[in-house]
């Protein structure tokens, strides 16, 4: 839970210093997925916490975004019951897919689709993947 809160705080901190939210890796989603992998039975609590944290800043689409976070948490829990998520690459792929789905849904809700934004979406996904791989490498490194 501590690491999850850390990811939320870090995401907020980076968003505060970055020129655009597109330039910040999706650490909230990363924190949520990694926390669910560690404690699967808490997926609902973690999803609600991530959703509420994000929605403090929401100007619109509160309910769809909230349901989106629950779906992301639920999907992670579901994937965990079918695949071996001990593999860091699978965890990273899961985070990137969830982040892409969430961002795409947000773009669709706001009717903001454009080639430029798809580019930003992919850049953000790539940054998220890199950060998650680094985080997992750091966590798995011998003391």
């Amino acid at each position, binding site marked *: 839970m501590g690491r999850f809160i850390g990811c939320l705080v870090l995401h907020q901190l980076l968003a505060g210093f970055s*020129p655009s939210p597109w330039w910040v890796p999706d650490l909230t989603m990363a924190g949520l997925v990694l926390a669910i992998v560690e404690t699967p039975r808490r997926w609902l609590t973690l999803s609600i916490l991530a959703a509420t944290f994000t929605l403090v800043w929401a100007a619109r689409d509160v309910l769809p975004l909230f349901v989106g976070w629950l779906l992301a948490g639920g999907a992670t829990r579901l994937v965990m019951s079918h695949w071996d998520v001990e593999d860091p690459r699978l965890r990273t792929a899961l985070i990137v897919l969830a982040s892409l789905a969430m961002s795409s849904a947000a773009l669709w809700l706001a009717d903001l689709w454009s080639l430029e*934004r798809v580019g930003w979406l992919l850049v953000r996904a790539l940054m998220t993947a890199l950060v998650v791989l680094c985080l997992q490498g750091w966590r798995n490194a011998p003391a």
Partner: protein
Amino acid sequence: MREVRPSLILSLLVAIALAVHPPVRAAFATVLTLPLTGIKFVARLLVALPRVPSLAAENASLRDRLRQCQLELAQARELARHHREADTLLHLPAAREGLVAAVMGRSTMPTQHTVLLNRGARHGLSLDSVIVDEAGVIGRVIEVQPATCLVMLLTDPDSRVAALVERSRETGLLVGQESGRCAFTYVAADADLQEGDRIVTAGLGGPFPKGLLLGTVEHIERDVLSGSATASVIPAARLSRLEEVLCLPPSTH
């Protein structure tokens, strides 16, 4: 697992109802205020650390500037007194007082450009209060909680401000674009609009009083076929680097 399912569904429904309920969101925002203040303080401290050696010189320079400003302030107060007397004679409304607020955090969602301020209804803020800084307009309050408020920035895709060109007085609508720019639309193709023109609030039918600086025209696209022009506008305020802002009550028409 089957025994858990009804309780899980029930808790899910309760959670949805609670999480999207404004008072719950307000409470969460209030609880967040304290840790966010601490984090911001530490972050600002870390940013300020490299400047410590030059602080003495900077302090002396600022003291000189303060003396100069105090002199100018005394002159400005005198002028303001004259203006008040003239306004009283002309029956004009008094100047509006602002409230200083600090930015607690900003949205992590790329499609929603909002910031959370540490002032709310308890401090006298109301819906549609206008948020500015020394450079220009930042946005308007869209949600007021007792201790915090949510501000929609000019660059949010839902932001609309009636605006005009300061030089030529051409009117239009400033629409937020989540790329960090705004679009000045509903302008005729042959409108007197140039790159570098300053766009200010028009004061028409919204909370924004007339004459506040919104931004500067970056480039113009004129479509002769549709008879309209659209200008890309760079916001005057640095919306990605907001720390302290001024909240003005909404304009009444």
